[in-house]
Structures are given as C-alpha cells and as structure tokens.
C-alpha cells in the first residue's frame, strides 16, 4: 500500500479509524444474534406455567409434576413433618431459612419445591435420608421435610418455584 510521508494526522488516518470502527461495530452487532440464539426459545418459554390439582394427593405423599422440563415435588406434609421442620434452630442449617418462608401462609402443610439437587442437578429420592425429606443418590446430599439442605455437598436448599394458590386445592406454577 502507498505510504504518505505527511506528518501528523491526515485524512487517510481518519478514514482508517472510521472504517475500522464501523467494521468493529458491525462484527459486534453480528455476534449478538449468534449468542442470543442459545437462550431458551419461545416454544420453551410458552410451557412456562403449569396447573396442579392437589386434591388427589394423600397426606404424607410426595407427587412429582413437570414444569419447564423440571421435576416439581409437591409434598402433602403431615403435622409431624411441619413440626419437625419448624423445630430446627436456624444456626444448624447450611442455608438458613425458616419453614414459614418456604410455604404459603395458610397452606402450611403444602411444600412445593423444584426437585433438582442444588449440587449438580440430580433428582433426589423422597422419603429417604435422615431428615424426613430427600436423599440425593448422586453425591449424597440430604434435604429435610422443608426441602432444606442438611448434608452437603449441595450448597443451597431445594428451590421454591414461583406459584400461587388459585383455590384451596389448586396451584399454578410459573
């Protein structure tokens, strides 16, 4: 390429920088769609609310439903399960949270949690482990009757999905 001997800034420098800048913006603008396509698409998002009828669930029973491809545990807790969960001092918990914060007021026996171990995503087994809740077969985490982690390696309690009671025996998740 021809080389001009002019010192200082000239028109050519300006054109180089302007062209480079437009090119960089163009490339950056094209990267976005290529990254963005990775996220959950509209058809996946469309499945994001699920209605659950609670009436067939017996006392003491845990039933699993699907919401956004994830298992949701609905636990119809006995009075003793609730008592046990509420009797634990918070300082004994790995991820301290009261049982009251994890259920809807007035529907205290219903525990609704995402059935995915917060360690690496396995589905814990119900009515197993030493805490009246769940045991994860993958690396041995244990959860109590409030879905709170009691034995690691899982760092967090089983997550509570967003849900509302539309009637006393029906909830909508999502």
């Amino acid at each position, binding site marked *: 390429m021809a080389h001009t001997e002019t010192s200082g800034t000239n028109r050519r420098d300006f054109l180089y920088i302007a062209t480079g800048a437009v090119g960089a913006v163009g490339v950056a603008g094209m990267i976005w769609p290529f990254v963005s396509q990775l996220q*959950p*698409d509209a058809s996946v998002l469309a499945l994001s609310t699920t209605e659950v009828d609670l009436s067939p669930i017996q006392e003491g029973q845990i039933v699993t439903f699907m919401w956004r491809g*994830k298992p949701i545990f609905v636990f119809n807790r006995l009075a003793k399960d609730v008592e046990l969960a509420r009797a634990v001092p918070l300082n004994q918990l790995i991820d301290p949270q009261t049982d009251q914060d994890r259920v809807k007021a007035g529907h205290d026996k219903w525990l609704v949690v995402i*059935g995915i171990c917060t360690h690496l*995503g396995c589905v814990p087994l119900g009515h197993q482990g030493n805490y009246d809740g769940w045991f*994860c077969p*993958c*690396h*041995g985490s244990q959860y109590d009757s409030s879905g709170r982690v009691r034995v690691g*390696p899982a760092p967090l309690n089983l997550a509570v999905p967003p849900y509302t009671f539309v009637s006393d025996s029906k909830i909508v998740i999502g």
Partner: protein
Amino acid sequence: MEGHSTYQPQGKIARWFESRLPIMGLMHSSAVSYPTPKNLNYWYTFGAILTMMLGVQILSGVVLAMHYTAYAPISFARVEHIMRDVSFGWLLRYIHANGASMFFIAVYIHIFRGLYYGSYKAPREVLWILGVIIYLLMMATAFMGYVLPWGQMSYWGATVITNLFSAIPVVGTVIVEWLWGGYSVGDPTLNRFFALHYLLPFMIAGVVILHIWALHHVGQNNPDGVEVKSVAKDTVPFTPYATVKDIFGMVVFLLFFSYFIFYIPNYMGHPDNYIPANPLSTPAHIVPEWYFLPFYAILRSIPDKLGGVLAMFSAIAVLAFLPWLDTSKVRSARYRPLYRQFFWIFAVVAVGLGYLGSQPAEGGFVIASRILTAYYFIHFLIILPLLGLFERPKPLPASIADAVLARNGATVVAGAAAPQTKG
C-alpha cells in the same frame, strides 16, 4: 530440522502441477524424507495410531449420522434402529462407541510417553500445548457424543456436567440455561450437542495439523532426550523406517480394538444407557465414561461445589504449564533417576484416582480421593519444580548415535560373556 525436500516431480504433468502447488513436495518432505531419530521405540507409534483413530471416528461417525436423528422423543429409538435395522449398523455403532474408548487409551499412552521422555521441554512447548488443546477438544467431543443415544447415562451425565458451570458465581445459572436452551437438559440441548459433536472432530483435525507442523519444525524428541546432532548419523528417513513401524503399531492396535468390537462390545459402556432418558428419575449410581473418572474423582473429593469444579478444571489446565513447572534441563526419565520414580508414583496415583471415580463417594473412598487429589497437584506444583534443582541426573550420551551404539554394544558384550546359557 525441516527435511529439505529431495522430491523431483516425475513427468511433465507432475512438474507443471508442482510448480503451481508444491503439495507433493510437502508430502514428500513430511512423510518420506523427513528424518526421524533412529532410537524411537514403539511408544512413538501412538501418534500415528491417534491419527488413524481420528479417521476411524470421523468415518464411522459420518455414516452413523446418516441414520441417526437428534430429536429427544425418538433419538433413543433411532440408535436402536441403527443397531437392529440398518445393515451392519451394529458394527458401525460398536466401532464408533468403542473407538472413542480406544482413542482415549491411545491418547493417555501418548501423553504419559511425553511425560516420561520430557517431550514438553524447550523447544517443544507449543507442540505440547497444542496436544493439551486436542485433549480438551476430544473430551468435549466424547462428552457430547455420549449424550446422543439419549439413554439414562446420557441424560444424567449431561445434567451433572453442564451443571458444573452453575458453580460460577453470579452468571452461573444463566450460562447453564444458555447451554441447555431451556430450564433443564432437553431437546434443544440434544440438538446443539449433535451439531457440535459433528463439528469438533474437524476442529481436532485442524489442530492435529498444527501439532504435526510444530513437530516437524522442531523435530521429534526421542527416548534418550538428546537433540539430533547429525542428520546422517542420528536419523533415518521417515519412509520406510517410521512408516513401517507405525503401520505395524496400528495393526496391533486394531487387533486389540477388534477384540472389543467383536467380543465385548459393551464392556466399556454402562448398562443404564440402554434405558431411555427419564428426567424424573436419576439412576442410583451415576458415573461418567471411564476416561473421565480421574477428573470426576477430583471433582468429588472437594466438599465445596465451586472448589470441586475449580480443582477439576485446574487438574487439566496444569498440564499446559508443565514446560515451565518442570525445571530440569534433562528431558528423558532414563537419565533422571528420581524423576523416573516420581513418574511411576504419579502414574499409579492417576490410575488410583480413576478407580476412586468409579466408586460411590462415601467413607474411605472420599478420604483416599482427597489424598490422591492432593498428591496430583503436589506432583506438578511442588515435586517437579524442586526436583530439577536437587536431582543429580546421570551423564547424557553425546548423541543419539552414541546412545544406540552403547546399548547395542552392551548387549553384544553381554551375549559374548554368557553364550548359550538359555534353556
């Protein structure tokens, strides 16, 4: 020591073509006249074996892809369709599934060969790092391939491994959802993994070309670890010497491979992968493919989620820094009496970690994995840097030719001293 091409195109057309694209000369200088150290042993045939295995995986994979469909509700059935309906489909799938294991057996031998003979030391650092990149790409490819049959192990292996990224603070959960294309492993995940599983082997092929280019630029290391001093005395031309030796190595390896394909095709697999993926039930004991087990053991040995993930990735990343962690100037373990012992301890520790990765994470297994994980890092970060400073290496041979003559001379003398004592 790039071999100067002695290639003379034969005939008018060849000369016409060669003066426009000198590809025959390139091939001649890299696969025919290229000088190879004359002391190479059979551990040096694994490079050729790996190249062959990449070819086998690409060939069998492309043919499998003609019969496979990446769609979650039917992928499991499509693989069974390959097994039962497609003519020789069982053979193609067993070649591909066992081929992945063979590929890893060969790469582990190849890596340990490099560790033993100090092949990562100057001027081969870039060559070595390209090898580490190939190894990473192989792991990614094999992981995504294992998801394709959409069995229980496919599904839960994918779940556990993708969830590793959720350990990243703040952005972890978002990254994992973007990997999945949903809120759990599902059809979008399967589709993108298939696309990438098809792509990555070709990227591996590209890096292999760079790897061989770097190799031919700096020259091969050899079991004595001394550089070639005289091409005439220390080397032999690649063809026929290395070519024939490599082909012999490949044939023996193929026999071993065939035994698996035809007699124990599911030996390396996990029976749970013949159960279709079920997002609601995790198998009681999930394990990754055998070639990931040492890293899986390291992951589980750390009781903290982020810590475990970091330890696992560091265990691989540390390999890339090896050229600078090993402070000894002497390459081959043949002349490093202490390193040689630590090499074998390390090999036992690596295999031990593999065994622990296959066992449930409880009791004594956890303690053992912690000890071995600690040793794994101590080997690279403490022993290797210090060893170079304190070890007294044995005297190095003056040249490859001297080393070869000394050894063969010694056997001649020993033979003369004790004639016909066998039997």
